[in-house]
């Protein structure tokens, strides 16, 4: 349980994706909190900013999409330190690019390759700065 004690926020409007992500993350030791759209996620984050260690977010969602969530997180004084990973398909390179430009720290493509997920989490959870 590499990441025991760490908490991840998973934001997706579809249950299946949240369930799948939660399953993968819980196996690594994360405590997982779920949100159904960007706004819900942002509200949770603002409530207890110190609680979260990493955010995984879908891009296309109702109410508040992933782009906006990235922007909000990265411009918030107590949230900007939390790495944001966006989830999308390879075919959505333009969305991924836009998300990265709007503050996303990394991305994982669907279908999710567990080896990549491991790598992305590892590189975001270490600090060389």
């Amino acid at each position, binding site marked *: 349980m590499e990441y025991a004690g760490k908490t991840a926020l998973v934001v997706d*409007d*579809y*249950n*299946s*994706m949240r*369930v*799948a992500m939660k*399953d*993968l993350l819980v196996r690594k030791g994360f405590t997982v909190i779920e949100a159904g759209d960007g706004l819900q996620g942002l509200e949770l984050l603002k409530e207890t900013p110190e609680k979260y260690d990493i955010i995984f977010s*879908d891009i*296309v*969602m*109702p109410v508040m999409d992933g782009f906006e969530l990235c922007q909000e997180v990265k411009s918030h004084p107590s949230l900007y330190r939390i790495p944001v990973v966006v989830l*999308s*398909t*390879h*075919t*959505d*390179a333009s969305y*991924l*690019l836009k998300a*990265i430009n709007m503050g996303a*720290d*990394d*991305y994982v*493509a*669907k*279908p*999710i*390759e*567990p*080896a*990549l997920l491991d*790598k992305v989490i*590892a*590189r975001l959870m*270490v600090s*060389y*700065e």
Partner: protein
Amino acid sequence: MSNDKALDRMLVRIEHLDTLLNLVGEVIITSNNLHTTNRRIQAFYDQSRPLDKLCLDMLKSSEVSSNRISSDLHSLVMDIRMVEIRQTFQRFRRSIRDLAKGGGKQVEFVTEGEETLVDKTIAEKLYDPLNHQIRNAVDHGVEDPLERQRAGKNPVATVTLKAYQKENDIFIEIQDDGRGIDLAAVAAQAVKRGLVEESALASLKPPQIHAFIYHPGLSTKAQASQMSGRGVGMDVVKSNVEELGGEITIESTPGKGSRFTYRIPQVTAVNIVDCLTVRAGKNHYAIPILNVISTLSYPLAKISSAFGKARSIVYLGGIVTLFDLNELLKDEPIEEQDEITVVIVESKYGRIAVRVSELLSPEKLVFTPLSTVFNTHGISGTTMIAGNRMGLIVDPQELVLLSRGKRKRVEEHDAEVQKSRRDAGDEGEADAWRPAAVAAPRPEEPEAGLSPGGGDAPLQIGHREEFLMELEEMLKEADEQVLSLENNASDKELVNRIFRIFHSMKGNLMMVGLTELGGVIHEVESIMDRVRGGGMEITADIIDILLDTTDTVKEAKKAIASGQTPAIKPSLREALEKYRKPKEVKGDAPVDVNQRTFSLGSLEQFNLMAQRYSGQSVYQAYLSFKPQYQQPFLVALLILKRITRIGSVYGSVPMVEEIEAQNIGTQIKILFSSHLPEEAVNAFFADLLVPFYDVTDYQLLKES
């Protein structure tokens, strides 16, 4: 529908589960009480003493509570099984559209009372008859737009499906504002078929003539259309509705339209049957109470055997043939008595009187269907009747058939009737009403010309079933929204929603490993993206593509459920071809990092100089990277972004704009400064970039 029974699920309200949990708690308490009582009784028995009052009271109270629990459970399950009729209604939206389009008609589909709750079984069983009637309404009821205009009607016809509940009955109405039933044509057909004497026609009222359409094989269309009108139909619609214990009324006004109303009782659960239990010789049987007309005692002397061996009794002024229940079911006949006990049983095939030895009691019984392996004609299942005895549940329909010497199952019988009807010469009158199930099992379409669909790898992570289940919901929603888009093409929020659904559908397909299909959906999604960006308008052609796409996904879902490789229709690919954006002119070949030096803007130059004077180290880095699961240009940006966290980046080759335009290979040069000591910068490259960003090689040069 039935082939993926395993995936046949429904949503259950938490509130219901809570009630269920409470009831389970009560069952446990009751069972504990029974256990205590049992031990008490045993003790009395061992000491050969009579039972005391307490024992009897405990038994009594256990009986009372188990009765209440079972009836609570029953009504709870009934509540859980309730679904909105919406889903059944919505399934017709698509077929009405296709039918209208195919017949050159304009039809608006209106639904009312979609929130009406019905038992799941009713919702499912209503599909066939409604499907048939909807087809009839659009095909025969509704006129061409031109004809409608000439008759002073709105060229757009309206077909309405309406549901409501009144007391314990569900009412379903199918209404159209078309030409109505042609009384003269129906009457002429009825005469031609010998259903009525021509001379008697004049005295018939419209409802009596309408009733002729229920007669098998009666079709007033000279030429059966492709879609419907093949005569077989209304008789089957009628028997479908009657199977649900319902009835149909017809109202029709020439020139104004028709309305069919089904009245269907809200039934009790399917596997709990109200039965009359009887004994026949040494056997115990249960007869579904719905089929029991009456029970009576009859003096043997009054039984008429006027017609040879056949015996009959008089019941309500009519003659009903009498049979021995055991004999019908091929067992020892019942012993003769002076006074016999008779049950009058009725099914859609007729009415008979069956003789039994003794009437026991009416009971609610739990029905266990009998495997067809047993080949027991006349028996549909087994049950435990009071006193822990095994009972056989009689199938009234088969029983009546057996009484006519037809040792066949109901399905065989029906198939035979259908066949003889076909053989009777009405070539076109095949049972097309029954979609796929009986008439034409859809071929599994491994058609020539379909894409081999290769390259779709299996799912990497679990939860495949969840993704597929959700796909089902997405498909339903997509169909619904796309059809309403047809009438609200400028609804921006609707366009957005459809865009999101297709986007999510793509995601789920990718998650279950259907990447090729996901790629196709991506193209559809891009069309919707252009529409929502204002770059395109919704046309009928786009609606067709959207619907074709959901069809393709449905087929794919079916294919993978049966272990096949899903295929993508070439027609869909072709249709999409038209909308494909011309390939973005990819700039030039990847920038060769060895051929170029950094070109800095004046601001970057100024910043760089300032850093040098402030004593921070400036580095030039050269990186080769080979990402395994990510796109190189995005990884290059991620690396640049990461470096900004240990310092400042002044320039790169290729430049950021070039990277974003994907003019990058797998090499990059970066000019940056860092506040970290040199060893730390080295560690950043060696311990972070190399293992975690797929950097295969790097050189780090500190400016002196």
